[in-house]
């Protein structure tokens, strides 16, 4: 830890906890972040529309349904319009950006999505 310390200080602006209590506290925060992420579906790709697409689409279903698609822009247009018809809340002003975001990130020629396997249950 002593060899890493100067590197960590420089790269993350982090103050290393100086006693066991502080360390426990920091670990608790990290754990809570991990716990929030644990079992969640994959994040949609980064980009200006990421948050809006995530909110609109994952209201009903998780992101894996989206990330496994490989569609042309025309096909994405049909899908977005169908989802709006079925209740997805998309501001009409954002419709074209939604379509662009999905078309750019999940085009026909992208390699197929590798989906996870159900893991054996762990005892927590």
């Amino acid at each position, binding site marked *: 830890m002593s060899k890493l310390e100067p590197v960590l200080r420089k790269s993350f602006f982090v103050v290393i906890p100086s006693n066991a209590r502080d360390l426990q506290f920091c670990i608790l925060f990290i754990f809570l972040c991990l716990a929030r992420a644990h079992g969640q579906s994959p994040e949609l790709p980064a980009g200006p529309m990421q948050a809006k697409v995530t909110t609109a689409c994952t209201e009903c*279903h998780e992101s894996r349904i989206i990330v496994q698609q490989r569609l042309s822009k025309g096909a994405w247009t049909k899908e977005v319009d169908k989802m709006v018809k*079925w209740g997805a809340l998309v501001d009409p002003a954002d419709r074209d950006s939604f379509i662009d975001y999905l078309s750019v990130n999940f085009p026909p020629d992208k390699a197929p999505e590798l989906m996870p*396997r159900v*893991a054996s249950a762990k005892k927590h």
Partner: protein
Amino acid sequence: MISRRNFLIGIPASVGAAGALHPLITWAADQSVYVPGDEGMIVRSARFFDLEMPPEFFDSWLTPVPHFFVRNHMHEPSMIEADTWQLTIGGEVEKPLTLGLADLKKMASHSVTNTLECAGNGRGFQQPHVPGVQWQKGAVGTARFSGPRLRDLLERAGVKPNGKHVMFHGLDEVPGKVPPFIRSIPIEKANDSDTLIALQMNGAPLSKHHGFPARALVPGWIGAASCKWLSEIKMLEKEFDGNFMKPGYRYPNHPLKPGDPLNVDDSHPLTALNVKSIIAAPVDGSTMKSKMLHVHGAAWAGEAEIVKVEISTDDGGTWQPARLDREQAKYAWRLWSYAWKAPKPGDYTFLSRATDSQGRVQPATADWNPSGYLYNAIDQVKVHVEA
């Protein structure tokens, strides 16, 4: 007691560390989905719940329930109590009925071993790609379903002469403004002696994922016909008019060019499954350490029977018969195997092609359709054999 200074430092420290670790957290979260009882299944989606059987589980004639694919258009019902659940039978009938689970259990029970396949199985292989769950080989399984015959229930209710279609309504929980999951089948299929209201699967009550306490079981047809969490049966004069009958689950009457839209008025509802075989092992892209290969898989044909499965190792130039396993039943798949020795190390491609009792043969390229339904192209697996 933590000092205030250290507390104030600790928060950004932790957030900073968590932020730095974030890509790892996401990777770790992506890799692990926990569903007790379904270990090893491929997660196509955790919400809505769609699990696919991987190739290595195609190793038994009856698929154990934990290995049976799960398909849901929407949310599974959050709570069904066996004691209070009811099934109503109405519409064009003389005597509308309301039955509980105990009533159904008192009726004469019949068993059918059925290969249930999702209409969209293989969609992931269709080119150009189409929207939907990108199933590959494993949205299919074979189980022994038991329960009263649907026709016995319909007889009790007394179907009127104009009752021509049987509508099924399940308790799927509908999100947003999605139409409810309602479909219908023609009365001829409903009255078939093998069409059931299934209560059991492989000798045990249906599990929640598979439609507890009762589901329709329409043998040899697409999985969507076998409505889960059945709550209402209604006799109709005409085919049900709703999303999951039109435009959903329809097949073009004439072949389409890839990319063409569906003309709903020139289409028919999907019914019986296609002739199909898949290679379960070896897995596509694998490296084999031995020249002796045990190629095996499954073949099925909906309401028809598998007559033969043939394997080619020369890109379809010549075909050799695979050995069909002995276990068989009217609507169930045949497992098959083919022992082969590589003449020398190198790259090899196996093709499997099934023929059924209706004379149908798997095509080299599946008919393209906008929903990727009934994909049944000759299966292909490439392997590398090491020295």
